[in-house]
């Protein structure tokens, strides 16, 4: 299964992406990839794009080995549109479905820099989703270290105490928050955006590793609770304090 054919969907940001990949990042290739940047709802272009890459590649659904989808973190609604499509395709085609972390896909796009990576996405509400990665060993992918964080850019910056390459679309908004930290080297956010091909390559690794596909209950990585839950917890804490 090293050269498995994967249909991948990545909708964690306003930039929606679909791809067909064969094999893994190290030994594979992208057969087709459409990445849209304009701010048009994912629901108004995702399935049309999937159909287009299938047609352009002259591939049938029965030739696919698996479907891979971005788990996030990212835009809640965007992630659910991508996942609903991925689940529908997987059920209809009888294919395994694998979820891949959006930040892992971004980290894979970085050339080895010999230092740690910090990948970030805009989480709105003046926060970012971020994760740290060890520099990729030769022939390997960058390895995530620790939890995925949901915090302010300032909090993230304070965690950095060694030379760090910082990448991802989160920099479009928060570049200035990191400019003062001399350990951080910023990569233009235009260079590294979510790409479905990376989700496909990492999905192929999960398939090759014999990971069990559990499509029924697969859910996005939200990192953050819903506003309603946060407010309810705050109210409960306030009630407890006033008692």
């Amino acid at each position, binding site marked *: 299964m090293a050269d498995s054919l994967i249909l991948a969907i990545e909708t964690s940001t306003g930039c929606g992406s679909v791809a067909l990949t064969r094999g893994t990042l190290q030994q594979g290739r992208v057969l087709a990839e459409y990445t849209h940047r304009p701010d048009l*709802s994912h*629901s*108004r*272009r*995702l*399935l*049309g794009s*999937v*159909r287009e890459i299938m047609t352009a590649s002259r591939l049938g*659904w029965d030739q696919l080995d698996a479907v891979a989808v971005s788990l996030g973190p990212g835009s*809640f*609604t965007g992630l*659910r*549109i991508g*996942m*609903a*499509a*991925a*689940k*529908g*395709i997987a*059920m*209809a*085609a009888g294919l395994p479905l694998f979820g891949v972390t959006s930040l892992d896909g971004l980290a894979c796009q970085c050339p080895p820099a010999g230092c740690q990576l910090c990948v970030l996405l805009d989480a709105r509400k003046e926060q970012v989703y971020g994760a740290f990665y060890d520099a990729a060993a030769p022939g390997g992918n960058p390895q995530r270290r620790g939890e995925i964080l949901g915090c302010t850019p300032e909090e993230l910056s304070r965690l950095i105490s060694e030379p760090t390459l910082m990448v991802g679309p989160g920099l479009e908004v928060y570049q200035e928050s990191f400019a003062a930290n001399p350990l951080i080297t910023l990569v233009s956010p235009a260079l590294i955006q979510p790409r479905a091909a990376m989700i496909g390559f990492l999905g192929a690794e999960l398939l090759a590793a014999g990971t069990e596909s559990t*499509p*029924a*209950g*697969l*859910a*996005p990585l*939200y990192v953050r609770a*819903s*506003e*309603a*839950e946060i407010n*309810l917890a705050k109210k409960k804490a306030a009630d407890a304090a006033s008692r």
Partner: protein
Amino acid sequence: MLILAIESSCDDTAAAVFDGKEETVLANVVSSQNEIHARFGGIVPELASRCHIEMIWPVVREALDQAGVSLDEVQLISATQGPGLVGSLLVGFTFAKSLAMVRGLPCVGVDHMAGHILSSMLEQERPEYPYTALTVSGGNTSLFSVASAVEYSRMGRTRDDAAGEAFDKVAKLLELGYPGGPVVSRLAEDGDPKAITFPRAWLGKDSLDFSFSGLKTAVMNYVHKLRQKGEPLKIADICASFQEAVVEVLVTKTVNAARANSHTRIALGGGVASNQRLRTLMQQACDREGLSLFVPRPAYCTDNGAMIALAGWYHYQAGRRVEWDDDAYSRSPLN
């Protein structure tokens, strides 16, 4: 023709399998989220969407299993396209479109209102066209003139709260929990509907529109006054009198609408259509006026996949299809 239908417009994930030729429901599965929203006293859209994405696969699977049908045998996919919570709709609608695209099947996007308008057609005793339909739920209260399976024109609608919304808000005021509608109706059984005179909003002699926010405020004022005086609340009487005010307006306006249409048949749909008092008083009014009343069983009143399958089947025959990049919508063009 076997139809698989998906409904996810609000807080229930639902799927049904329907035999179009025989017009029979083979499976009708609903996964309710009431417990999840109860602690917030109302539906939280983000949590509803989070549930839908986890439930959509098992609910569709369950519907196929219950019907004893494999996906290979399904010939048409039908899904609610709107109105409702867009985040919720998108889960079911996108899933449905994807199934259809991969399987090479036609897919129909159904208006949720059409589902409720047609839901009485799921029963053995079904109305002939034309008929007057009252769709009444937590999200809508509207009257329609139904000319055929795919032609409906709106005659009136609520200008503020839906009837079911008023039930839920009164339940919240009386601290009866969520969803409050069924609890209010149950408590009303032991109360006197004439105990308290709450206002009825008629909105002009010939108006077929509704308004329930004034009634809700009247109940609030009544309750607050008693609470301020420290007097005990006769909950059953409040529930019965409130319910009577809602039901009386619904019945009168529906009968007026049928008369204005020169229709001899009335059909009900929507969650509040399973309210027993509404059914009783509407039946009495229809008997008095020489009208036939059609009310679906409760499982077809609340949100369900069967009505979306039926409406999808009719719209398919009328030539309707979705494009793969069609979007869900929050407001109904019918309403």
